[in-house]
């Protein structure tokens, strides 16, 4: 799967984009977040408090209980502040 990070999530993780092989036992965005926390110190910091994060799956806003698959493009970011 393709992971994208924006704003301070990108800065904490240390990159804006990475390829990731989704294990079989990770059915939801929330489970993916738990897994990503262990990926390194930057990820740990970025994903420490999931309530600060929002997610998109294939460029659509999704809740953390949404299903994910290895074909998806998943993005993590803080609440949007455009306009």
């Amino acid at each position, binding site marked *: 799967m393709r992971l994208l990070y924006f*704003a301070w999530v990108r800065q904490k993780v240390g990159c804006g984009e990475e390829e990731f092989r989704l294990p079989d036992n990770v059915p939801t965005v929330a489970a993916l977040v738990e897994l990503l926390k262990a990926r390194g110190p930057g990820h740990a910091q970025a994903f420490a408090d999931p309530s600060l994060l929002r997610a998109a799956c294939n460029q659509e806003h999704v809740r953390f209980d949404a299903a994910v698959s290895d074909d998806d493009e998943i993005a993590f970011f803080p609440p*949007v502040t455009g306009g």
Partner: protein
Amino acid sequence: MITIRVQSDDFDVGVECESLTRHQGETGALVTFTGLVRGDGKLRALRLEHYPGMTEREIALITSEAESRWPLQGITIIHRVGELAPGARIVLVAVAAAHRAAAFAAAQFLMDYLKTRAPFWKEEFRGADSRWVAPNSGDDEAALKWR
């Protein structure tokens, strides 16, 4: 006619108004909203980051929703990205309609939804510091009233 542009270049409100109403003899009302970088004496610049692809997709969804709610004749949305100085234009929402009530309502709806759905993030630079702008709870409430 729906026009959506995400760009680093500035825009001219008059030119956009003109192209939205040209060939539209039945337009009676044109409402524009321009968002500007609000200076406070200390703000050096704002940097706007976005999610290419999703941005255009979300804005297209928002404009379709507006068209389904009000009888509109055209919508133009331009959102700038990159570094912007205080006083710079950030966003333009322009709505053409036969009557003013629809044009005003749709322009407000579009702004409320842009603020809460379109994947843009603002980073403020003050002196040597930078910080990501926090979402405004008033914006969430403004968007909720359209549900």
